[in-house]
């Protein structure tokens, strides 16, 4: 079972369907986080760019497994208490728009950092919950302003971003308070690249795993480019798509693109070998 569902699910099917995890009383970490990054004047913290420093990359480079493991565990331990994410399918993201309020469309800090995108081209992130009422206190976090959305408008935006190929994920801001619904891609998303490149689990795999039906797959390969997690490839021998289910993060982007309906999203828990692969 997913650790977070176990800890914070309280009988709900998923921890992020439990309305208590969006409650005002949980929202307290924002101030401390901002003051901390300000005090250090750390460009990486300010830009939301990197979760680990050069010491980790150097340890990896020289093959110091013990040091890599130490920094990794330290980083994950800290992030799981404050700010981490889990991948969602589009359906799950839609469902969340009916649980949390308000929902706002904001500019993406990661893409501002990695692409220098002008704000008007960068509205792909969603802030949600009571923290959004105070957005004007942190104009730098919300560069370009904030668009408050109705649940229906939010669903429409999520569908459009899905079409564009962006992965949906939900983030804690002081675990288990859920305050962000991000729509991301590799390598600009700090969470995706950190988990994919550095294997530090800032982003947890979702509750589904993509499964291909070889009978239905016609080899069109239109799904391949949708994967942001290196789980999809094309198998010329069979002329079909190939999904590495152990690498699959369960975002469902490949499934929403397949017009043969050859890819289904299977409950992770239903697959014994994958049930604990997060």
């Amino acid at each position, binding site marked *: 079972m997913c650790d977070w569902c176990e800890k914070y699910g309280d009988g709900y099917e998923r921890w992020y369907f439990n309305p208590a995890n969006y409650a005002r009383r949980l929202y307290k970490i924002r101030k401390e986080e901002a003051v901390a990054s*300000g005090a250090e004047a750390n460009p990486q913290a300010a830009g939301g760019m990197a979760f680990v420093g050069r010491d980790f*990359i150097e340890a*990896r480079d020289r093959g110091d497994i013990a040091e890599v493991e130490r920094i990794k565990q330290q980083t994950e331990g800290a992030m799981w208490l404050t700010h981490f994410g889990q991948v969602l399918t589009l359906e799950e993201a839609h469902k969340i728009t009916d649980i949390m309020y308000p929902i706002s469309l904001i500019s993406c800090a990661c893409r501002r950092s*990695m692409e*220098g995108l002008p704000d008007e081209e960068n509205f792909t992130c969603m802030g949600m919950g009571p923290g959004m009422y105070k957005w004007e206190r942190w104009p*730098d976090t919300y560069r370009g302003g904030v668009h408050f959305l109705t649940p229906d408008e939010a669903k429409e935006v999520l569908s459009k971003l899905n079409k564009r190929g962006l992965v949906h994920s939900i983030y804690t801001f002081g675990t288990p308070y859920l305050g962000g619904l991000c729509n991301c891609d590799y390598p*600009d998303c700090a969470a995706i690249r950190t988990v994919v490149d550095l294997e530090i689990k800032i982003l947890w795999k979702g509750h589904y795993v993509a499964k291909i039906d070889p009978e239905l797959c016609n080899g069109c390969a239109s799904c391949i480019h949708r994967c942001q997690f290196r789980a999809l490839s094309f198998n010329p021998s069979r002329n079909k798509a190939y999904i590495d289910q152990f690498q699959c993060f369960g975002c469902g982007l490949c499934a929403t693109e397949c017009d043969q309906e050859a890819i289904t999203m299977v409950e992770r828990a239903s697959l014994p070998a994958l049930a604990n692969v997060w």
Partner: protein
Amino acid sequence: MLPTIIVDDEKCEDPLSCRRCLIICPTHVLGLGTDVGAQKFRETDTSHFIVRPVRFDKCSGCMDCVDGCPQSAIQVSFGGGDAR
């Protein structure tokens, strides 16, 4: 082998509007931050934006950023050799 990538912030005046190096790098090594943290009730002026090597472990040493920077503000070196 890991590179040392140095950006001269004095020369690199307004990276948020230039963003030439961010776009030109084939492996998305470079990213923007600010030299001040998030400030309450204040939007950070673009003059405080700085370029830093975020994913330097993905740097191949192609030197496209070094050659492409209109301000010649970027230096890349490997293994303590001469920086370009």
